[in-house]
């Protein structure tokens, strides 16, 4: 019975979701590329007469050359690999824990009253204060940095989960109950699909935060990673390598964001089709 109403529920959820937005910028896709070119030109002109001040900002050509060098000798890939592992670890741990706890809080008022103040308060604790404790328990390096990453991505995902699960239309809940849906069916057939748009919002924020968070961890204790590349290059005033690290991080964040967006588009295709 529940299976039969699945499609109708999806239609209802579609209607409950925010209205589709018209996207005129589709025609203006070249605009970001144009902005990038203008920035590049400006950067080139500003550093044209550098007079040995490359220790402040490296010219674009020097950065490009350094990028090729670091890519060719494997240094860049090694750092990207370390950062990606930390991101994967932190993202999985942070998002997983946030989803479980967020779902519990959304469904249980008592749990919300007990945990919410601590969750919010913990968010305000600076990572530099927690890092030494983590290092003491987990040792310096990958695990500690992954946990730092998890702590940073945790809160936005927690909030998204709570908001997403609570945004389920009560009429749909009543409908599911009237069809004697089991808690598992309620979870998989109603709550998850209904919460997905909000959950993906949280995932997108968490993805970009995870990239920044990995760098935070690498500033505290690391032997490798893009953050380590940036900090160690900065120490020797090698601004070319600093910018290689910064641009690679930016590209990484963009790539991960795009990946989540594509998954979102695919998973929420049913929602789009209904518009």
């Amino acid at each position, binding site marked *: 019975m529940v299976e039969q109403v699945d499609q109708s529920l999806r239609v209802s959820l579609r209607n409950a979701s925010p209205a589709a937005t018209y996207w005129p910028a589709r025609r203006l896709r070249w605009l970001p590329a144009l902005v990038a070119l203008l920035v590049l030109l400006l950067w080139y002109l500003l550093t044209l007469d550098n007079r040995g001040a490359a220790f402040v900002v490296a010219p674009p050509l020097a950065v490009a050359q350094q990028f090729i060098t670091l890519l060719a000798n494997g240094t860049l890939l090694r750092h990207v690999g370390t950062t990606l592992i930390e991101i994967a670890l932190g993202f999985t741990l942070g998002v997983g824990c946030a989803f479980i706890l967020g779902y519990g809080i959304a469904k249980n008022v008592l749990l919300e009253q007990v945990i919410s103040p601590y969750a919010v308060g913990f968010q305000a604790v600076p990572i530099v204060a927690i890092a*030494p404790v983590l290092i003491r328990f987990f040792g*310096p*390096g990958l695990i500690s940095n992954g946990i730092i990453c998890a702590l940073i991505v945790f809160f936005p995902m927690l909030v998204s989960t709570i908001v997403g699960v609570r945004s389920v239309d009560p009429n749909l809940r009543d409908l599911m109950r009237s069809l004697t849906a089991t808690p598992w069916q309620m979870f998989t057939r109603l709550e998850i699909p209904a919460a997905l748009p909000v959950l993906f919002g949280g995932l997108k924020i968490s993805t970009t935060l995870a990239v920044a968070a990995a760098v935070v961890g690498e500033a505290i204790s690391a032997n490798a990673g893009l953050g380590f590349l940036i900090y160690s290059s900065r120490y020797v005033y090698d601004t070319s390598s600093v910018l290689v690290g910064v641009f690679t991080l930016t590209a990484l964040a963009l790539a991960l964001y795009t990946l989540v967006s594509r998954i979102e588009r695919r998973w929420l295709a049913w929602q789009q089709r209904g518009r």
Partner: protein
Amino acid sequence: MVRLFRLLSIILVLTVGLAAVPASGQAMTPVTLFLGYIPNVQFAPVYVAMERGYFKQAGIDLTLENSFDETDGVTRIATNKLQFGLISGEQVILARTQGAPVVYVFRWYQRFPVGVVVPADSDIKEPKDLAGHVVGVPGKFGASYVGLQALLNAAGIKESDLKDVKAIGFDTAPVVCGRQVDASVIYIANEPAQIESQCFKVRVIQIADYANIVSNGLMTNETTLKDKPDLVRGMTAALAKGLADTLADPKAAYDISRKYVENLKADDPVQYAVLTNSLELWKTDHLGYSDPAAWKLTLDTLQAMGLVKEPVDLSKVFSNDYLPAPSAVPGGIPTAQATDAAG
């Protein structure tokens, strides 16, 4: 006649008065001194020089700027946004390698203040014993890491001879106490005491005993040296006087520091020990003097690490030309005391 005399007197007074205002205004040059780290008792010589008016006597109206970001300080001094900073020696070489026109003019720390700490019961007795062990460093870059490399070079061993070098951050005590590393690179003025207060007795291998590379000192830029050499001399003279006073009377220096360091208690034995431990790193018979051999050793270490690839003209990296003569520093430490310290 009387009227004329009065008129002339008024004109004379007004002329002198008006002339005096810009003169006194010009005499005081506002200077911001960049200091790494937070306000701390380790900067006592600067606080003493300020409190006792040594900077003012040199025509300098000094403001202090503390920051954790030493690289930023060096960059701002190199671009003449700031004129002076207390900067680590290897930073000067590294910055110059990248074209930054910075010059080190006063060697404040005569001994490199970093060491390697091991538990007192450890079988690591000297630097070569580090081979095969796990060594912690705050990060695999920075003065501490350079110091470790200098120590390994002096001992004739390489980083690859160690079991591992772990980046453990700046909170060393929990990692050492948890025995997550066999040895750790630390700042010798305070960290051994902190570790001992938290867990067990430790032994310190002072890097300066094996490789006394250049540490913190006063850095300026070529523009300031060219346009305002007297200002540079004023800065070094004031700093030398503050340093001499601190060495001569650390208790008074500690009391003065309390005005500048928030929450520094009058009877804090740990902080007072930090100051007295630091004195041993500052002592010399010629305050501020840079030993060319120390600079050569620092450069050799950086080159061995691959951080400096181009040739560096050390004569442009540091200068002893702006130092006050030892006799010009009242209250400077007696030669005999300095000789003891050097020995």
